[in-house]
């Protein structure tokens, strides 16, 4: 352990190119009444992956608009049914049916979250590669669903306190099942520590009238990154965050200025800045043999998850 090997991802994206992609995407999505959306998403992901580099090689997103379109239609169908039940219940003007409609709607939405996380991870991982080696997610939908539902109920009963433990549980489960070829991952965070981190962040932010929020964000990012482990055979590699509160402050203030002063038009430049900040502040420490990662994942097709996740807008952990 004498040498301190460390590696980083780099983001080469340019605001102007991203802006072009955004504009074309928006335009086509508008004139097709939203039907172009999956293709827009594919183009955006392809670009973002293509500009992400690790050890001299770029990442690739293999997903296509066509694949995602199927998922998109399914997702719209599911939402239509759920909203149909909700409004159907409302239309009856009968208290029982109204309550029933409301209950089915919210329970449905709650169930959709883990299903969407699962589907999105499966799809996204299988469609991502680097040097021809594919990522993969081997989680089990039922297991994730169970963890999520039990966790959600406990979170409700404990007035949200258990939420911190649930987030960590989910991260652990997801990383445990993530593969990059024969490389495996784990997440070493703990619910208790995460909970106190948030409590501390919340109260100090209140006390300092928001100033502490930059340290809070920095801590959350560090807690996420620093607890990721990567295993190549017997070798263990650790992720390390170098983000500082000052760095976050600069990133956020300038981004807000960019977005607000341009009335939102310069958002792509803000996104590029954010990507560069995130990538430049993550270090992967340890002796990784970048030439010896073995392909292990099989092909996989079903895009529903990819779009559901996007439609109900959950950040994937």
């Amino acid at each position, binding site marked *: 352990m004498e040498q301190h090997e460390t590696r980083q991802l780099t983001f080469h994206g340019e605001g102007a190119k991203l802006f*072009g992609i955004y504009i074309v995407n*928006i335009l086509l999505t508008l004139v097709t009444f939203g039907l172009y959306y999956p293709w827009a998403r594919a183009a955006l992901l392809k670009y973002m992956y293509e500009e992400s580099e690790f050890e001299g090689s770029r990442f690739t997103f293999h997903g296509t608009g066509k694949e995602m379109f199927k998922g998109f239609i399914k997702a719209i169908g599911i939402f239509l049914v759920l909203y149909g039940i909700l409004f159907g219940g409302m239309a009856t003007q009968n208290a029982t049916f109204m309550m029933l409609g409301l209950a089915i709607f919210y329970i449905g939405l709650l169930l959709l979250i883990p299903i969407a996380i699962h589907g999105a991870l499966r799809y996204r991982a299988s469609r991502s590669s680097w040097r021809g080696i594919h990522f993969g997610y081997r989680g089990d939908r039922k297991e994730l669903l169970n963890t999520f539902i039990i966790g959600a109920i406990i979170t409700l009963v404990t007035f949200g306190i258990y939420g911190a433990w649930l987030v960590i549980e989910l991260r652990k489960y997801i990383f445990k099942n993530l593969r990059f070829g024969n490389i495996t991952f784990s997440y070493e965070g703990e619910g208790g520590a995460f909970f106190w981190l948030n409590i501390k962040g919340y109260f100090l932010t209140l006390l300092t009238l928001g100033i502490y929020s930059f340290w809070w964000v920095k801590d959350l990012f560090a807690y996420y990154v620093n607890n990721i482990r990567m295993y190549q055979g017997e070798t263990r590699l650790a992720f390390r965050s170098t983000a500082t509160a000052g760095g976050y402050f600069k990133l956020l203030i300038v981004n807000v200025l960019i977005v607000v002063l341009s009335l939102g038009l310069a958002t792509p430049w803000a996104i590029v800045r954010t990507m560069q900040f995130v990538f430049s502040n993550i270090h992967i420490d340890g002796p990784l043999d970048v*030439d010896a990662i073995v392909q292990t994942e099989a092909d996989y097709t079903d895009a529903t998850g990819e779009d559901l996740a996007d439609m109900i807008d959950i950040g994937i952990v």
Partner: protein
Amino acid sequence: MYNFSVRYHDGRLSIAHDATLTLMPDHWLIHYRDPSGELTSVRWALPGIVTDENFSNLFIFRYGEFPQQTIECKDGIMPETLKKRYPEKVFFRKRITDIFKLNNTTIVGVALAVLMLMGLGYWFGLPWLAGAVASRFPVSTEVKMGDTMYENMMHAYEIDQRLTAATNDFAKAIDFKTHYPIRITVVKDKEVNAFALPGGRIVVFDGIIRKMKTKEELAALLAHEVSHVHYRHSLRNIFRSLGGYLFLSLLLNDINGIVTVLADNSNMLANLTYSRELETEADTKGMAALAGNGISLKGFVDLFTLLRGEHGDVGSLKLLSTHPLTEDRLRAAEVMVERQKGVRDDRELEGEWEVIQDMSNK
């Protein structure tokens, strides 16, 4: 000229081989030295080669079943050469996304042009569309909708039954030339205000009635509100803001919260200026209705003077005031008064007004 230096990935291991690609008539030949130094060659049959969609000058080709072999080439002349070498096979399909490969100035230029078009659509197309949709909306549904809104709102107010009856009688003495059932409610509230709901409901605060000195002022207020009803301003506003939301959420789809907040506010700002247009329209049409009844338009001048005294005209609030500046309205009304001919003194209306004044000054 048919040789390119490329990077080759065999799809089984993450090692990147620096290789030479040779374009043979019906296949590609890839040569590289594996780590032990042995010269290895791979053959790709032409039909199985797939080009990756890309946005930069890194060309990626894949071959075979999963896990696919990959080559990456950074040579800018590759597309040209492929076209010449294999005229019958299309490696790079023309796509709309090719625009991204142009230089940055072109991208920004195209983007700005598109933005301008969208801006035009938002500022001119959307109001027109909202008007078109609103005009096709059935009147019966509009009345029902307005009544539901009215019932929900009235919980917050105390109705002055006697003034309500008297004001309705007053309104009946004027012909507003509308097919909507105009129903006026006077509520007990000191504020100097009045508003119209879709379908003919008009709510007047007794604070404004108490401040009025002539019947023409009340007639002007009612004429203004009736115009809102008759020209379906609420519906147009609703459809426009719905359309605006749809437009902006599409425009800014997966961008973070700051932008959403911004989008919310910019849309509101747009609605405010839109309202100003509608207010001006309500003034003009209201004046026309009163003129048709032979009622003096001086009522409008007095009404605006009253409003000015009440709310004041603060310069810095220009952008954010829903109504056109009272000063501007006042001036416009004064011009109309000068032009007006054929004013009659309506005894019946005067009678109704006296009833209202007795009640409100009691």
